[in-house]
């Protein structure tokens, strides 16, 4: 009996010692705080980047990974409040793109098959009764359309549904949408990332041409077709938004417009045709795989006459045109699309160097206005223009993941070449947190990037 007790005591002693020994070393936990800011009621104003669009679609899952939602989750750790979004039902939502297969073409270039998944028939059901919403991002909205009462209900506007489903009345302007929400919620903090579409709508349609609605892709006649918003109109509209946004003296962040020409939407297809030692864009010959075939496109030359020109470095071919280049059953039958002077690329498929210059000039002007408004109102400006250019030029290494702006493999951009992936939005959210931490002397924890995947492959 004595021996047994001794043994038990020794055993218990040994176990306790070992338990104590296997305690992990203490590292002092960082103290997180909100600094001078107050995140009780957050409002985010913006377009599809703010709404959470990925791969040309909106799903419940994407909305969970929108940068406003990621920010709200991090703000909650320093006293932030609830964040309501206009949720689409769980499932396929508005039908984003998906990779169905990847094959290699004759010359060993990866050639993915990308198609939209079937839309959920209830994705556009009106959810205005579930408001008010903290996330006021509406895909497709621009400062140009701020006071346009027929924007939401216009059947020719592919984005109208996004506003139609979140407002009780169909002829609500985006301005009224924002104002009524600000009145309801009285935000203590806001993020404003608006103005992207004032340049992107023009750039994404190859310089302001009709999308292929009627089989016509060469018609350009403002105001029916997208055009670059003038700096004056941009500033007037932005000030109008700030006036209502700053009514109750919230803190917030303004965000600059990215260089849309740095997007894979512009560069992914174009870079296929870069040939060493040549300024001309040249397609690979299917048999020799040499870069030898020039590309032709329609554009207005210096005299304003529509002419067929050879594509050069500095001209960009948009992503969707990539599926058709070389096809002999597209545009002019019997001739390879884009590879023959008699079957040149449509105006809408190319953002030529003149159109690029006009776009970049506008973006630089918009960003200067945003920075001026920032200093005027003592609001920090998150320079996403600079961040995305850095990403495109240098890439980014984060938690052992290399991220860059390449299409498909870069991890940052989704399948539409314009909107980020979950991982891209998480990186954006962390950059915004850095800006807020600096300006408002806060210490908000970053989101864990590794929880957010990039492009998903079958």
């Amino acid at each position: 009996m004595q021996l047994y007790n001794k043994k038990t005591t020794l055993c218990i002693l040994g176990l306790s010692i070992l338990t104590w020994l296997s305690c992990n070393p203490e590292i002092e936990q960082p103290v997180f705080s909100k600094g001078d800011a107050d995140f009780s009621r957050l409002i985010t104003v913006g377009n599809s980047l703010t709404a959470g669009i990925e791969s040309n679609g909106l799903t419940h899952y994407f909305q969970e990974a929108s940068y406003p939602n990621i920010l709200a989750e991090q703000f909650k750790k320093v006293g932030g409040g609830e964040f309501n979004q206009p949720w689409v039902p769980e499932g396929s939502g508005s039908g984003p793109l998906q990779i169905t297969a990847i094959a290699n073409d004759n010359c060993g270039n990866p050639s993915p098959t990308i198609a939209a998944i079937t839309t959920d028939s209830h994705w556009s059901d009106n959810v205005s009764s579930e408001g008010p919403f903290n996330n006021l991002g509406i895909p497709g909205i621009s400062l140009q359309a701020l006071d346009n009462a027929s924007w939401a209900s216009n059947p020719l506007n592919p984005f109208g549904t996004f506003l139609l489903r979140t407002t009780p009345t169909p002829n609500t302007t985006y301005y009224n949408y924002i104002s009524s929400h600000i009145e309801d919620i009285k935000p203590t903090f806001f993020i404003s990332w608006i103005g992207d579409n004032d340049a992107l709508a023009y750039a994404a349609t190859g310089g302001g041409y009709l999308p292929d609605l009627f089989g016509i892709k060469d018609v350009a006649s403002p105001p029916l077709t997208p055009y670059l918003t003038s700096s004056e109109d941009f500033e007037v509209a932005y000030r109008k938004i700030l006036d209502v946004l700053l009514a109750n003296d919230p803190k917030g962040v303004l965000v600059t417009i990215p260089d849309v020409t740095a997007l894979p939407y512009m560069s992914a297809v174009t870079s296929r045709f870069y040939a060493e030692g040549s300024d001309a864009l040249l397609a690979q010959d299917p048999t020799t795989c040499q870069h030898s075939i020039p590309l032709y496109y329609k554009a207005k030359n210096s005299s304003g006459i529509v002419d067929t020109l050879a594509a050069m470095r500095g001209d960009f071919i948009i992503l969707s045109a990539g599926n058709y280049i070389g096809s002999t059953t597209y545009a002019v039958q019997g001739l390879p699309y884009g590879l023959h002077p008699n079957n040149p690329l449509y105006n809408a498929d190319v953002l030529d160097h003149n159109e690029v210059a006009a776009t970049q000039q506008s973006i630089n002007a918009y960003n200067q206005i945003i920075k001026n408004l920032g200093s005027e109102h003592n609001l920090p400006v998150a320079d996403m223009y600079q961040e995305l250019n850095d990403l495109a030029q240098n890439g980014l290494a984060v938690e052992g993941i290399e991220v860059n702006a390449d299409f498909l493999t870069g991890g940052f951009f989704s399948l539409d070449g314009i909107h980020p992936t979950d991982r891209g939005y998480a990186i954006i959210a962390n950059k915004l947190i850095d800006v807020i931490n600096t300006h408002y002397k806060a210490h908000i924890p970053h989101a864990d990037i590794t929880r957010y995947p990039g492009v998903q492959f079958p």
Partner: protein
Amino acid sequence: MLLWLLACNTYTQAGGFQVQLQGQKANGMAHIGTAVPLGASSVYFNPGALGYVNGTRISAGVSPLLANVSVLHPQTGATSAKETSIGTPLSLFFSTSLGKSESNSALSRLRLGLGIYTPFGSAISYPDDWIGRYLVQSVDLKTFYIQPTVAYAINEYVSLGAGFVYGLGKFTINRAIPLANSQGVDGQAKLSGSGGGIGFNAGILIRPTPRLSVGVSYISAGKVSISDGKTEFTVPQSVAPLFPNTSFSSSITLPNQLLVGVAYYFNVENENFISVQMDRAGWGVFKELRFDYAQPVAGEEYLAEPRNYEANYVFRVGGQAKATQNLVVRAGAFYDTASAPDCCVTPEVPDTDKYGGSIGLTYSPIENLDIDLSFMLVQSKQRTTTNAYSGFTATYAGHAYIPGIGIEYKF
């Protein structure tokens, strides 16, 4: 009890992934061993000292590592800890003198020895889904050095020794690949390989006075060449052609070691002494971790990650004293600098400055048998770095408890 012993973490101490637990007598005094003939383990600590080791001896020892490492990711506040696994640095030494020591012939001053020991090792695994999983999930490195040795005591003042080292290394690394499939599940990569290399271990022991001895020994760098490494990639099916399970080659240079020690004896029987020792490991050879693939993986012909390690130094002080007829007690302390510079610390080798101490004893129940026991405590200094290559910022902290047991029998 055994289960609890198994539920312990492993650790690597000293710079990089060097393990310094080669002799149980030495372990009891912070791994002091270069300036004094310890027994058969002098094969490792100083082949020169072997010249003064009498008789035929065989010794064996093992030091199970119980260690803990915590990692804090400061930006998100996430903390992780290494998972439990067990590593057992071990050593086996043999030495013999060829002639009778009484005869004072040249032959009697000659010694032969053999050592098998594990100078480098690492067995770390983190939870599979931790924040650093794209850097490492688990790594397992084992090395064995086999060292036949010859020593010659020129006279009572100087003894020289040298051994030929044959080294074997084997490793496996597991990490996640940030390529998700349609269920959002990451890819996986596993690299494994083994190889060998050769080197030497030479030393000299000088006894200018009966009370003082100075020892210097040098183990050459060991280049382990791996020619037929294996890769195993698990990725979404559509990108599988980009990740062939190709072979790879790699060459890892294990650093050279210079040990310099001075000992002062308190009595003429040379049983009670105090010694100071400095170890330098030439980690400057470890500039990058590089694997050259036979076929391109993800468009790359090779994977190279900078390490840019620097030489590391360990400063030791320790000693022993005879307590009773058959009991010797020991104690020691050490300070060990880190080899990895700020740019290049990685979670698979959380290299930091370390300090610690040990106690030990030798109990001789019968005249020719030594039972050596030791217990070492190692404390890592907390270190925060951002790895410039992977963009991974972490704060590392750790400690280790290393019991040891060994036996030496003299014929």
